[in-house]
């Protein structure tokens, strides 16, 4: 079954004994509050938080780091050079070579370096002391912005290279689409499976734009994950919509909006734009 219903409708129906009760206990606003608190703490204190990012550059033919005049000047850091050869990224200094595997933080003095991106297109992000930033702000929770249903299979299965929430290029796979009722109209949204580091983990995500972008929410659009409920059913809760990292810090590039994923109506749920990032969103329809 791929039809999507508001969660509240499912609950009412279940009370009338028409359908099995929806397993919503783990996705209540209490859990959402905890998720938001965890994320705010991570933004505030994690060494790889966007609030602590001080520079970000494609490694390209190599980057010098450290003293003034370097490609990336970093106060207090001795001269280093980061180079990319045949997919392998290495940090060089007078003390020797240090491989820098993708996605793994490398400490150099008071800085943390992380190289991400595809093998031939590594991007270096440098993290320093957190500069702090406004805690994420959210719209009040609205139960009618939560939907449940199944995934419609992709018309054109395959992979696509796109920017993830954190501005890194990933090879995502077409996971299908969902069709939800908004303001009396059916809106179809494309869903991509985004890989999550090592192992088998991934997230089903939708990057969408809506009527609030530019005024109440971040202009580039927002991400929202599908939460599996079992039996091929998912919960799409716009109260969980998140800003891309470019909303927190302008050193991150903003993902190009996904073609077709525009909701004409305003979706007043999830994260608002608290200010901080300055990147201009790319042109709509670029992806």
């Amino acid at each position: 079954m791929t039809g999507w219903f508001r969660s509240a409708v499912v609950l009412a129906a279940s009370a009338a004994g028409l359908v099995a009760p929806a397993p919503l206990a783990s996705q209540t606003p209490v859990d959402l509050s905890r998720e938001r608190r965890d994320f705010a703490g991570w933004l505030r204190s994690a060494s790889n938080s966007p609030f602590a990012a001080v520079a970000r550059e494609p490694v390209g033919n190599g980057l010098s780091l450290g003293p003034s005049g370097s490609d990336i000047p970093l106060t207090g850091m001795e001269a280093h050079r980061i180079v990319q050869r045949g997919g392998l990224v290495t940090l060089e200094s007078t003390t020797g070579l240090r491989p820098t595997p993708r996605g793994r933080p490398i400490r150099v003095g008071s800085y943390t370096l992380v190289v991400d991106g595809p093998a031939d297109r590594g991007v270096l992000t440098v993290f320093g002391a957190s500069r702090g930033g406004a805690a994420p702000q959210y719209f009040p929770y609205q139960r009618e912005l939560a939907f449940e249903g199944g995934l419609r299979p992709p018309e054109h299965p395959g992979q696509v290279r796109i920017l993830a929430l954190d501005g890194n290029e990933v090879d995502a796979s077409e996971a299908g689409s969902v069709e939800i009722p908004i303001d009396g109209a059916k809106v179809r949204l494309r869903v991509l499976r985004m890989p999550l580091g090592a192992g088998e983990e991934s997230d089903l995500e939708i990057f969408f734009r809506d009527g609030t972008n530019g005024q109440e929410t971040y202009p580039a659009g927002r991400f929202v994950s599908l939460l599996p409920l079992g039996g091929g059913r998912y919960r799409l809760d716009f109260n969980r919509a998140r800003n891309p990292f470019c909303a927190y810090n302008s050193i991150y590039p903003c993902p190009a909006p996904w073609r077709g994923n525009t909701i004409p109506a305003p979706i007043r749920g999830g994260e608002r734009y608290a200010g901080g990032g300055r990147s201009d969103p790319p042109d709509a329809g670029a992806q």
Partner: protein
Amino acid sequence: MKWAALLALLALSGASRSPTPAGHWRAALDLASGELRFGLSIKPAGAGWRGELCNGSRCEPLSAVRFERDSVLLEMADYDAVIAAELRGGDSLAGEYRNVGSRGPRVIPFRSARGRWAASRAPAGLLGRWDATFLQDWGTSPRVFEMRNGKAGLEGTIISNTGDYGHFAGRVMGDSFAIAHFDGSFVYLLDGALHGDTLRGVFHAGLRTEIPWIAVRSTGRPHLKSPSEVTGADTTEPFHFEFPSLDGQTVTERDERFRGKVLLVDIFGSWCPTCHDAAPELIRLYRRYHDRGLEMVGLAYEVTGDTAIDGRLVRRFRDKFGIPFPLLLAGISDVESAAATLPQLHGFTAFPTTLLLGRDGKVRRVHAGFYGPATGAQHKLLMRQWQREIEALLAERPG
């Protein structure tokens, strides 16, 4: 009357006793659409505590257990992960499992009650070897399931092209089952049901990933493609390595201790659960054949590239298993780095990868991945194969 007074006294003394985390716990991680069950055991140890995390009958020590007031912290330092929970009324723990993620914290709700999960045995129709196919968005990929009844009820593992996912254990409800593996890093749950002669179900990874699968009884024909088929080595020249040991000395294949010996090179990482499975088996082989001329060396590819941190992790790995052969800090744990530091290998894809070198120092066998004890027959087959190969190489006279 006397009995009543005694009971009242006992009740009072019990009520005044502080809650303690000591004991066995029925623990679970609440994934988005499934319950991943595992066991915990906590005991007093001196002034502190120690504990174990169990998948069925297979238990691993926690690196540290801290308890203060009603807060319990269970540390899994190998994977930089913790379970932080609140002891409620002395008989339940509630909190979360977490480690650092790149796009926000990786957090999964955790809960636990006192006691042990009941063992449930599977009917014969579920047991045995199954050729499975994972149905992913971009296509399909093969796996093999091994299912058997063990000490803790249904046990098993999942095997992919590059090795196994570790020991799984769980429960059976009629023709349905759910088995899980949680080691502090990997969060895996396999649930399914028998439909006629076909198994169907969902593989859960982490909080949200779901991969549907279908499986049929293994016919004995190969279903997986071993990475050993694509991992090769230069066999014309002696295999060269040169890396620092844990005490900072440079070790190479030219060192006296390796000269003229059959050498097993274990390319591993302390972060890799399959490498933890392989370590005790390598030690067994070492003890059995060392006097006859077998040497071993472990090349560690670690997480940070920081010698101090990586050295600490590898020392912990060495001490955990009592590894008697040298472990060298070879580099960082991505496949590209490992391949770059060992240019005589090509098509390197898997941790662990094991090389067998003849007495002339040339590579005679490359085995990518490892089938751990959880794979049962597959594991025994692999160990017999290694023994045969080691004995054949030991029998060769130096050229």
